[in-house]
């Protein structure tokens, strides 16, 4: 809300600087977001008086004027026809600058010297009128700078008003806050008016057919109104608020809305069929042309203000073009109403019409401020337009409006919530400064009636907030509560898992990314997911910003592949990234969404960055597998295994695996399918993996003991086997372990070889067997006999030979 300090001064004295006032308001919860200085866009323009006019000797259409500047008389050549001797006018002296940058110079016009220029409204950007010289009020001090004389200099605060403080959407509301904070009184505007003898009830009537939406409607009628441009003071007020001046009637309705917070509307009474007002709810599909000239299809249950035949305004939102006040208007009907806030909000949102009126109605106006507002406006219109105010106000009040009610404040709760000891006297002083009435008081409780405009104050806690606010947050001590032990939390374990993954991946050179949770719906097609894959059950956003961000992701892999594409564009070809986040599934059975915690990894390009002492090798499946092994190892995931053919449509069928702990599938790993790479336009092989962190966390062993350091030496035996290519490493390890020989401590694969000297379709696999006893040093003979049994059982069970 833009607040002109000059306007504010009409209602409360400001004896502090704008900066200090801004600080005070901010600390009261009315955050001043910016302070702007308004100055007229001209300089060197003075108030002057015409003391003589004679015709220009050499030009029929020009005049020679003598102008009294306050200290001397100067000659000015002028072409206007609306001036006479004695007029007070704006004079741009030699050296003056006008809006747009024009500088006034001494000149000779058709042989006559001109030492200045008389200006029109538009030339000074003080109005639209360019038909003649601007005529200033007779009483302006001649010789003074025009800007100062008109009071055009101003300071404007942009105040961020929180949604609860509808009372501060008015200058008077801000003035009340300033008054409460500075101890000054508020001066309320004058609403005394004089009416003629014509009873309004003989002119018009108001019928409310929807009292739930419009519980109260007030009308006044003014006759013989003369529509004209508004005077400068009114225009300046509106412009400081950011509104354009229209005419002396519309401007007054806006002025009073900003002044008092009550939106008003003026109808051209002669355009109202049957000369009456009917308030009803809209019919489905009804259309209406609003003041801005747009044809609106109204939502049902909007409030329609109608005449005897047709709608003339969308109640609380905007008037209609069919009853607009125009230059020819002479009778007006002024409306001040209370509309149901949520109905206005609903209508304004559906129509996309965030008008100043709707903004105030939906936040709740002062239910007791209607008469004051309509009287204030009638008085101002009568003053400015010479109209007559007809006798009486029509006040239809068929519905109920929540009004301020008495609130019991228990003094112990003030300290109980705020944590500062504030005396009862201080509490009472604060509440009274805010205009509240203390109806009863004893040692423990107060009975408080808030101001009717404070629609946000309905219960004890609201009063406590007011007390804290006015007492000053900076006066409240800062104390730590007593500490108690942390309770166990659901998040804890999985966060340990995530921390471990981050540690392992960082150590392996992978950088963490965070991608948007929403992606393009075609991601599931790009990943070639089969029609029955549950990851096709995406959660759709009903109002996405773009299609690119319109479904919640069901895999992490897609986001990482997109990261690769972009980084390729930025010139990176070696990429190691990982992400920890969620995927989201729509469970069509239960019609619920579910969220899964995942970690995903990706590598493409070189295994190591390009460096003088690193091999220039391309990364592959085993790079990522090593990381996954380290993670599972660090988390003590029991019995991990990697089973060929992950069964993931987006992975290479021969270079991928499912990751298991015992029989629980905890993730997958593999090279991305070439068809997927092709679809996405990725030109290099990529390996990806994903772990399901909810399952990993549930199987991980967080509290683990340790093995004692072996006391006796190990004995090693190496063997090279010759096997068919499809015999997997894990088969050898499994076969060795099948021997159940407890002295066999572990089996490692130290060499894999295919090629020269190895028959086609075969491979050589070197295994290292490690034997150890916990209670003695093994002898060669002992080891040899066990070892040869194990090797023999491997060759027999796998059908392989020793090389």
């Amino acid at each position, binding site marked *: 809300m833009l607040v002109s300090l000059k306007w504010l001064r009409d209602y409360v004295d400001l004896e502090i600087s704008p900066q200090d006032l801004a600080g005070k308001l901010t600390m009261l919860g009315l955050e001043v977001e910016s302070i702007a200085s308004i100055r007229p866009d001209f300089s060197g323009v003075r108030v002057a008086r015409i003391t003589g006019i004679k015709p220009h000797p050499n030009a029929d259409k020009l005049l020679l004027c003598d102008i009294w500047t306050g200290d001397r008389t100067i000659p000015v050549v002028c072409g206007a026809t609306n001036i006479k001797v004695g007029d007070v006018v704006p004079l741009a002296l030699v050296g003056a600058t006008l809006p747009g940058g024009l500088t006034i110079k001494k000149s000779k016009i058709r042989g006559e010297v001109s030492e200045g220029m008389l200006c029109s409204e538009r030339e000074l950007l003080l109005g639209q009128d360019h038909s003649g010289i601007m005529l200033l009020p007779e009483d302006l001090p001649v010789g003074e700078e025009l800007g100062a004389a008109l009071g055009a200099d101003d300071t404007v605060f942009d105040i961020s008003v*929180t949604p609860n403080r509808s009372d501060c959407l008015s200058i008077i509301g801000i003035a009340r806050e300033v008054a409460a904070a500075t101890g000054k009184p508020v001066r309320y505007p004058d609403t005394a008016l004089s009416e003629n003898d014509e009873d309004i009830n003989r002119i018009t009537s108001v019928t409310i057919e929807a009292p739930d939406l419009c519980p109260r409607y007030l009308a006044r009628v003014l006759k013989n109104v003369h529509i004209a441009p508004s005077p400068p003071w009114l225009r300046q007020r509106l412009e400081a608020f950011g509104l354009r001046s229209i005419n002396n009637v519309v401007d007054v309705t806006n002025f009073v809305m900003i002044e008092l917070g009550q939106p008003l509307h003026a109808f051209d009474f002669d355009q109202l069929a049957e000369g009456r007002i009917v308030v009803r709810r809209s019919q489905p599909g009804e259309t209406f042309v609003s003041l801005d000239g747009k044809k609106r299809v109204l939502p049902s249950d909007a409030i329609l203000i109608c005449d005897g035949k047709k709608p003339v305004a969308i109640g609380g939102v905007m008037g209609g073009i069919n009853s607009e006040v125009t230059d020819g208007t002479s009778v007006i009907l002024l409306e001040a109403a209370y509309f149901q806030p949520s109905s206005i909000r609903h209508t304004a949102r559906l129509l996309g019409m965030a008008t100043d009126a709707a903004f105030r109605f939906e936040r709740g106006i002062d239910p007791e401020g209607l008469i004051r507002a309509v009287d204030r406006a009638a008085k101002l219109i009568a003053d400015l337009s010479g109209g007559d105010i007809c006798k009486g106000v029509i006040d239809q009040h068929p519905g109920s409006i929540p009004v301020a009610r008495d609130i019991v404040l228990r003094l112990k709760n003030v300290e109980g919530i705020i944590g500062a000891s504030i005396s009862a006297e201080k509490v009472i002083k604060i509440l009274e400064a805010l205009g509240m009435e203390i109806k009863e008081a004893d040692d423990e409780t107060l009975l408080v009636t808030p101001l009717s405009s404070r629609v946000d104050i309905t219960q004890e806690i609201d009063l406590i*907030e007011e007390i804290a606010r006015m007492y000053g947050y900076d006066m409240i001590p800062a104390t*730590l509560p007593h500490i108690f032990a942390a309770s166990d939390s659901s998040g804890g374990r999985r966060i340990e898992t995530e921390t471990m993954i981050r540690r392992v991946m960082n150590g392996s050179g992978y950088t963490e990314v965070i991608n948007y949770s929403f992606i393009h719906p075609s991601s599931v097609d790009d990943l070639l997911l089969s029609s029955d894959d549950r990851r096709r059950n995406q959660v759709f956003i009903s109002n996405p910003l773009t299609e690119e961000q319109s479904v919640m992701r069901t895999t992490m892999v897609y986001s990482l592949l997109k990261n690769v594409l972009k980084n390729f564009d930025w010139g990176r070809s070696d990429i190691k990234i990982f992400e920890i986040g969620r995927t989201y599934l729509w469970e069509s059975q239960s019609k619920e969404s579910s969220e899964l915690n995942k970690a995903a990894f990706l590598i493409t390009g070189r295994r190591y960055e390009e460096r003088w002492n690193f091999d220039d090798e391309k990364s592959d499946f085993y790079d990522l597998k090593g990381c996954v092994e380290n993670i599972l190892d660090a988390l003590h995931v029991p019995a991990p295994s990697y089973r060929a053919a992950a069964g993931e449509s987006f992975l290479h069928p021969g270079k991928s695996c499912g990751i298991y702990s015992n029989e629980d599938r905890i993730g997958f790993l593999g090279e991305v399918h070439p068809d997927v790479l092709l679809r996405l336009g990725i030109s290099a092989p990529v390996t990806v993996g994903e772990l399901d962190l909810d399952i990993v966390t549930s199987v991980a062993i967080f509290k683990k003991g340790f093995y004692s350091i072996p006391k006796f030496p190990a004995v090693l035996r190496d063997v090279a086997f010759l096997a068919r290519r499809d015999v997997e490493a894990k088969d050898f390890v499994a076969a060795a372990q099948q021997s159940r020989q407890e002295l066999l401590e572990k089996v490692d694969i130290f060499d894999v070889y295919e090629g020269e000297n190895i028959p086609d379709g075969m491979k050589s696999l070197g295994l290292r067997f490690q034997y150890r006893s916990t209670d003695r040093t093994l002898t060669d003979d002992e080891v040899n006999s066990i070892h040869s049994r194990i090797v023999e059982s491997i060759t027999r069970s796998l059908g392989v030979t020793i090389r």
Partner: protein
Amino acid sequence: MIPELESLREQVDEELKTARTEAEFQALRIRYLGRKGLLTGLLRNIANVQPDQRPLFGKRCNELKEFVSAKIDQHLAELAVSEKEKSLRTERIDVTLPGRAVRYGSLHPITKVRDEICGIFAGLGFSIEEGPEIELDYYNFEALNIPADHPARDMHDTFYVDEKRVLRTHTSPVEIRTMQKNSPPIRIISPGKVYRRDSDISHTPMFHQIEGLLVDKGITLANLKGVLTHFLKKMFGEETAVRFRPSYFPFTEPSAEVDIRCVICGGKGCRVCKQSGWLEILGAGMTHPQVFKNVGYDPEIYSGFAFGLGLERIAMLKYGISDIRLFFEGDLRFLEQF
């Protein structure tokens, strides 16, 4: 035979002087002390010495033997030292070449800031809770005292999934879920992703918040100030000035915005703090009695406070990042700096 010994000794002295290499000294050892060496030969010929002179001869021979042996050992030792010094002088690597370890990966700046904040609150006994990101309208709004058509919904430009589901616009619904599950005392923080329908240089449609909630008997606004001041001083430095000012959130009352003295300009006023000298860091407030009623807590017995802060904002201040979108573009040139 003694003169022979004498001349042998002179000969040895001479040869020891001329020997230079380890091989020459070893050759000397063999030449004099070996099984067929000159000294050994002399001793073997002791029979040719007159019997009365034999003890003296033997003694002298042994003395000379020990002398030669010691001399050779000494020269060899000196030689070893000088060889070592020579090799220390000549062996050189280029220590300015890069090392061999794989480059350490980077944590996302949001993760770093989150861990730091969670760590500070863990020290105050707060534990971590989480909640769904696809959230029921009830938890995101209704239970937090924000009914449909409430003007406060303007503060949340919401992504909807369907009539009753939204992408949560803040982490505050975790407060409700936690209180429904547990009885007081409650002391939790909840980091997570939140979503608002907004996208420009200072807004991304997804961002991160941390929510905090503390409920017990006798919790006050002064405690709120105490806990959050402690946090902000840990986060931004002990000398950081902190300011609490009244604000409005439907689910807290009294409510506060918490500012710190601008870390960019030190309070003089700059573009980042919009010339105010202060930076808005946290929203907070005393839990509204209606919220307690919504979860079945008695506001006459319990009180508490809640707070929420945006991680991106803190990361941007901490690292001087001016475009929030950088966090989510996966640009390694950006991410590898952390």
